[in-house]
């Protein structure tokens, strides 16, 4: 027995290919070569069930499919042309981008501050690191409902508190001027911990030596932050921004739960437009056109940010 074991190990040492099934390695028996596909098969099957509707989405956006017109036909880029001449579309684009960029910007700055503050070993910081994640774990819809209740004029607490500074008639999401502010506020409440959490992980993974030598050299706090902390944190910061930016570009839950896109058209971002056209008005092809355009925007932004991420990682590794 012992000698067979020895042989196996010798064989492994000479032919590592035998150990890892490779469909292209013809020396392996077929049963071994198909193994990767067999193992991944069930997941693939589920995936097809999701890729197929997505393919349909792209196709439908090129047709005039509505529920009242089931005998749809291919119309090329007609929906896209209509969309690009529709003032509603430009308003939506503005709402989508304004929501995503303002929420992400506030969360990044606030999240960075919180992470730096919590990156210490006091008992208070330790407790706060734990409770910090509560808003992030509550369903966004539930979180939004909590805020909606707080902003409510009769039972809500916020206007009572604002009364002390003479703002008891603040209308929050009910007024077009402050609606965007109100939903971004909720987004910031939910997702700032996401950024803080990632940045804390980044801060805690930093090597100590560069900071010690910076202190010995008498570098100022700002100098250390700008030249050491920030570059080392950059890969974490960019990952956090990628996730937040994409998720807030396709944000549905918070806006829908708060106002359903209102007042009027004020908060109609792309996902809400797609919902109203595609589901409620049964104009599937037009609703899907919004989604395909959003998908293209998301893809473009993530591609750009991933390149930055790679560069930031290289720079951080070189420090």
């Amino acid at each position: 027995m012992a000698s067979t074991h020895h042989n196996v190990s010798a064989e492994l040492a000479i032919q590592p290919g035998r150990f890892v099934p490779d469909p292209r390695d013809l020396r392996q028996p077929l049963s071994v070569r198909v193994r990767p596909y067999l193992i991944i098969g069930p997941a693939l099957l589920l995936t097809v069930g999701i890729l197929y509707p997505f393919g349909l989405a792209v196709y439908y956006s090129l047709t005039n499919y509505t529920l009242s017109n089931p005998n749809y036909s291919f119309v090329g880029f007609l929906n896209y042309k209509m969309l690009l001449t529709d003032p509603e579309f430009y308003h939506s684009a503005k709402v989508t981008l304004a929501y995503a960029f303002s929420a992400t910007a506030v969360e990044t700055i606030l999240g960075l501050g919180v992470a730096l503050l919590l990156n210490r070993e006091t008992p208070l910081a330790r407790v706060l690191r734990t409770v910090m994640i509560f808003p992030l774990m509550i369903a966004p819809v539930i979180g939004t409902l909590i805020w909606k209740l707080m902003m409510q004029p009769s039972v809500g607490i916020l206007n009572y508190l604002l009364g002390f500074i003479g703002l008891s008639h603040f209308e929050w999401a009910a007024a077009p001027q402050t609606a965007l502010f109100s939903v971004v506020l909720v987004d910031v409440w939910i997702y700032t911990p996401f950024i803080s959490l990632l940045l804390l992980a980044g801060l805690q993974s930093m090597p100590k030596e560069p900071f010690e030598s910076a202190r010995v050299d008498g570098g100022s706090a700002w100098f250390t932050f700008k030249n050491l902390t920030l570059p080392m944190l950059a890969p974490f910061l960019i990952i956090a921004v990628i996730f937040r930016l994409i998720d807030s570009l396709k944000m549905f839950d918070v806006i829908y739960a708060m106002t359903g896109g209102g007042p009027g058209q004020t908060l109609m971002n792309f996902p809400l437009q797609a919902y109203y056209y595609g589901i409620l008005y049964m104009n599937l092809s037009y609703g899907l056109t919004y989604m395909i355009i959003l998908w293209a925007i998301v893809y473009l932004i993530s591609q750009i940010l991933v390149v930055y991420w790679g560069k930031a990682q290289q720079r951080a590794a070189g420090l």
Partner: protein
Amino acid sequence: MHGAGRCAVGMVDHGADGGINMESSARNRFIQSLLTVIMLIYFAFALFPIVWMVLISLKSQPELFTTKFVFKPTIESYKAITIGLKYLKGTGSFRPDFPRFFLNSIIISTASVAISVIVGVPAAYALARFKFPGKENLAFTFLSFRFAPELSVIIPLSILYRRFGLYDTYVGIIWVYQLITLPLLIWVLRGYFEDISTEIEQAAMTDGYTYWEVFWKILLPLIRPGLAASALLAFVFAWNNFIFAMILGGGKVQTVTVAALSFLASEQAHYNQMAAASLISAVPQIILALIIQKSLVRGLTFGAVKG
């Protein structure tokens, strides 16, 4: 960078002895307490809504419309949404079927995660260990589900589901929830498999373990903590989802998130019950979050940050 991270677990304490160079310790103490105050202000913002929700849920109907912080607490609202109207004379419950929605959420989230674990663990293993054509494309296809706008899949599915009788069924909802749970599990677990040295597998095979035994007896136990954490996080994601269940489900498979929203739309007066319902649906998430705290960052970033 990540490797260094896991070795140097010690904290970089900028505040106490690190970056800030202070001449006088009095000024240092002032800055320290200023930072503590800022920290507390942020946490007032983060936690006040939850605390206020607890207060509202404990208020009786007459006291609901006062902003008093001192009142006689009552668990009437909790009784109303769990036991329902008939056992409580007078108070009224607008949703005596709340427990059913809660159960729906449990069934759907648990089943979604279970299926994702069963198909996702082998897939993650294959993506981590094997070399095969199209591997990276496949991995990114899984990842793209996480970033695709949900409605681009839901709108066509709403047609298909009605055509194939999957609308408002558990099977239909659990299938579409794979969009949430499967990419998470595959990507996080792939990272955990990659963390295990292939030498361990080689050694086990030299010891006479078969290919499948290595997987079951060596690898699976090694990734079990990571698997548990990512499965729990997937459960949280599934539980928190709103849009899939709202559009592809009707009254039969309604989840708590969908139900919670209809509470506010249908009943304007029972804010205390709505608060109680929200809290009950939020508590499981908070408990799970506390359990998986250590691997939360890794899960939330799909393995991109190995916190």
